[in-house]
């Protein structure tokens, strides 16, 4: 089963290396991300949390993007810089090496 991995860089920090499996999705509480090298992960999006309101519409707060989604798409290594803080002022960039492994082998039928 693929995993959703939630990381808050300002609270938890960012590991220097993150070992993932193809299909995993990583969610960072961050304002931006830069893919520095590799193609084993893809940036799904730089997003802002929103909710479904009582009237059924999707409501978005006023603020800067606060969510970065990455998907482990292929075996290999990628380096990304995760950015948090104020996009218009002081921000912090943290580099992480994403090492993506292939999907677990399917169990053999007996």
């Amino acid at each position: 089963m693929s995993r959703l991995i939630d990381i808050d860089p300002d609270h938890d920090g960012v590991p220097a290396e993150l070992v993932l499996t193809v299909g995993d999705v990583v969610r960072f509480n961050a304002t931006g991300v830069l893919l520095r090298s590799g193609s084993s992960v893809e940036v799904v999006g730089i997003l802002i949390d929103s909710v479904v309101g009582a009237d059924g519409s999707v409501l978005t707060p006023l603020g800067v993007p606060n969510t970065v989604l990455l998907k482990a798409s292929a075996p290999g290594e990628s380096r990304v810089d995760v950015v948090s803080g104020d996009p218009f002022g002081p921000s912090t960039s943290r580099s992480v090496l994403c090492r993506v492994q292939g999907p677990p082998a399917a169990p053999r039928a007996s």
Partner: protein
Amino acid sequence: MSTNDESCVRAFREIGRITARFLDGEAAVAPGGGLDGTSMDGTSTDGTSMDGTSGVFSAPARDVSAGCRIMPLPARLQERAAEVATRINPVNAPLHQFQDDAAVDAPLRLTLTTAKYWGPLPKSLSVSFLERTPADLRTRIISHLNAWSHACGITFAATSGTGEVRISRGPGGYWSYLGTDIRLIPANRPTMNLQGFTMNHPESEFRRVVRHEAGHTLGFPHEHMRKALVERIDPQKAYAYFLQTQGWSQQMVDQQVLTPLDSRSIIGTEPDQDSIMCYQLPGDITRDGRPIPGGMDINQTDSAFAGLIYPRTLRSPDESLDAPSSSGTAVPEWSESEDPAFAGV
């Protein structure tokens, strides 16, 4: 910073018209007192004052019935007059407002989905916290929300239950939903986020951040999205800057920085780069290389406009614009055949 008197006068006229609608459709103001118990005699308890925590000038309470009065048109002409005014200047467009009932007329109903205005009656919004929050921090945050209340008729009050304003200090940065949208947010969700705020934060951050987010709750959008300020930004510089620093696409930069607010959806003063609702923008992205300083606290223009939009005192319902007022201002009347022609409408 500049206060544009003409814009304020236009806003004041529009608010007067909207006030009449709300007074017809909402709960009546208690005789002699506001909904939150504030004085209705045209003065605040301390009159003109300085905000004790910030030194921000607090405008005196306005009594809209005092002095010069705006003479209202007969009801049959108000819709056409609004159309004419809007055509002359989009700023005159009816203020968008959310209202559940169907009492509003067709032109206003067309804009309901984007309306965020709380209406002109004094209000108290209840406030709760989603996480366990020390009492001194709760008090401090609410005191900064109420920095707006020195100038306007909306106050914030703590509740032990589920507040209309629900504050989280969890991850996700600083944000708030806009105006009356907070009524639509599920009760288990925050309407405002103040990531990581503690008593250790400097007072300047409480002023800059909490008061900014409170402004959104009052319905004020980002000032740096006003057309005049957006036009100071060089798109190519902005694309390069945010790609390099954040990894943002051009589309995201367009949305976040380069798309001005629709002038027809807002009503306000001249764009104010010192407003508390204005972000600080770096000189790296402006055409002239000078930064847009942004606001560090509620300034006089913010206070004055908040007091205009949300007056601390209002006429009582029997003084609505559609009826003779107790102070002697009556709706002028003439026969329908004498109505002026509105060219092009």
